[in-house]
């Protein structure tokens, strides 16, 4: 009986059922905002640095394309 009541309550208030306080916390809380902003900042900086390395790799690849003797003897099958 208590189980059935619990299920009924959950069906009546699905938002409450979704808002597991441990797993998903309050999306409006400053802590969630802080973590999102911190993660976003580090992601942006990382993307910028990796972009720089992408440019270097592209430069090396282009240089190789123009100077390599043939693609026949490269690695593997």
């Amino acid at each position, binding site marked *: 009986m208590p189980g059935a009541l619990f299920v009924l309550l959950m069906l009546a208030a699905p938002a409450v059922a979704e808002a597991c306080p441990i797993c998903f916390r309050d999306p409006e809380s400053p802590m969630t905002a802080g973590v999102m902003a911190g993660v976003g900042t580090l992601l942006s900086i990382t993307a910028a640095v990796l972009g720089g390395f992408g440019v270097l790799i592209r430069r*090396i690849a282009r240089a190789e394309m123009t100077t390599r003797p043939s693609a026949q003897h490269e690695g593997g099958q």
Partner: protein
Amino acid sequence: MRLVSLDHKTIGLQYALTSLFFLLVGFALILLLRWQLAYPAQPIPVIGEALGDGNVTAGIMLPEFYTQLGAMHGTIMIFLAVVPLAAGAFGNYLVPLQIGARDMAFPRLNALSYWVYAAAGLLMLASFASEGGAPQSGWTSYPPLSVIAMGGQNYWLLGIILLGVSSLLNSMNVIVTILHLRAEGLTMMRLPFFVWAQLVTAFLLLLAFPPLQSAALLQLMDRVAGTSFFMPSGLVVTGQVLDVAGGGNPLLWQHLFWFLAHPEVYVLILPALGIVAEVIAANIRKPLWGYRPMVFSALFMGFMSFLVWAHHMFLTGMGTTMSAFFQTTTIIVSIPSVVILTSLVVSLYGGSIRFPVPALFAIGFLPMFGLGGLTGLPLGLAATDIHLHDTYYVVGHFHYIVAPGTLFALFAGIYHWYPKVSGRRLNETLGRVHFFGSFIAMNVVFFPMFIQGLAGLNRRLYDGGRSYDYAFADGLHALNEWQFWGAVALGVFQLPFIVALVMSLRAPRGEENPWHATTLEWQTVSPPPHGNFAGLPSVDRGPYEYGGETGGADDFHAQGAVRAAEAGELELSSRRWRLEPRADTGVTNGALGMWLFIASEVMLFGGLFSAYVLLRAGSVSWPSGAELFGWQSAVIGTLLLAGVSFVRARNRPGVLQIGCAVLFLAVEAFEWSSALGAGITPRSSVFAGLFFTITGAHALHVLAGVGAMLRNDVNQRLLRYYWWLVDVVWIGIVVAFHI
């Protein structure tokens, strides 16, 4: 072997011996820990009484000692044993040989990298002798526990900062060496896969370690200077509200820690995959299947591994948006691993497979790594992670990646290249006993962890969960006894390896190329002399031309040959790109090294500014920097740094530039002193703590720049790049603290 040497082979061997020593120490610690889990409240046999009163009572392990063992086992195995063995030892010894170089690009920095690593290791070991013993907060050092823990934690933090320095020096060296010192004809697509793996690994270490260094610096500030970056307000410890300013966030540590610690997994895996690829190719006598997809997968894995770290934080309440993003990237990053593993497995098809000991370890690696990888998928999904997080399932998963995974690959590499290092082979019979014994023992230790974890048994419990209400776990405790005896057997089965090493010292010298392998390291004598090759190596084909169709009459084609060098040619080959830019990268060795260093520094300050943003955005109130510190020092500091960077000097910086930099330091000192005079200290608030920490780190960089300007042997043109970095960080400081 000289104790202090600039030769990459000596440094590689130093890394190997030191990391194997730490591997043994880490294993000894876990034997003690597993005894406690198997037989709680029973005295440790033989050595129990000798462990000291602070660690045992009547030979029975105390909880504090248990937590020290757990924390130091993880720390030693990851940071001091496996990564230095995979990247430091194998990378240093083999990369120059496989690309036909005479040494690393920066031999002095290379030697410094090893000695800094050794110092960090000794410092961390010394923590056992500190008051309160070694760190007790797990290898992850999560605050707030780690901030309020006893003194050993400081050793850990300083050790991590030093390890970051060592990694930076090593990774810069590996990248410049591979990109600039390749032999004639050795294009990127002719590089052995092992070299590609080391290249990507070096990028990971270069960029991922600095944010952890910034986190370690912040935690050290919390512990030593009384800041509270990781300490929330109103924290109650043993019934008392902790006397800290508060306002910090423990999740900040997790954010910065996992930014390194997840890519660190790829730092473990990639060299292992590289080794396995080499060993498999040499023992199946046919080319690797899918070389190009493997290379692009390694590159993709490297890029993606920076975008997955927060899947370790699903349960922290960071929100569904973040969880969804990191869940997606985590599943994506598993694809390149699968591509590489599949390529290796498919390569076996149709091969004339030989089974010497290296091949046994390499082939044994494949299913073990596969098991480790597949069991990781449920942990990458936010929903299933709720049940599995912090259980023994996680421990089983990452041990399958690292122990029968990476360690098997490393043993494959040791057996495979030992004839190159010493000119002698390790005993085959002992090697087989070593492999089969280890294979069985490791599975006895680690497989039951999946069963325990799926049942919900938590990790890090002093008595394995017996004193908790784990009724469901009754049958699972018996598995701990199996695991303990499995660990003992694992230790016993390492003895044949040690005996084989000792026996090899008296063994006769063998063939120069016992595996009939193709890559360049086998085109020189064993062990290779100083300078590696008698002449100049040149390459005219790919690294895996084995077998009837491609391998020619001898079953294989060496990748290149070594031709006699004319007078001065050898010297020129190693110095050439020091003086003139290479056509493909467009820069000299020094300039490339400097750009890599700057990239690493950007990540260091990126970590610090990310901490600023996280704490500020998560705060309900934030002070005004303009009101606290004013604008005057910002304007004067900006003008002075502009003076350093943009005043034109000929060959050496003039008095004006050096004067500007020194005056800048004086302005910073005045600003600090004014703040302290006004009662603003690092303890005052998170904002004040960030101000002192970030401006302090920046001032240290200015000081280092002044030191470099005063030296005659520093390339001042390259130094300008460094000052641009200092300027950019200063702009960030002005925005964060003065506007």
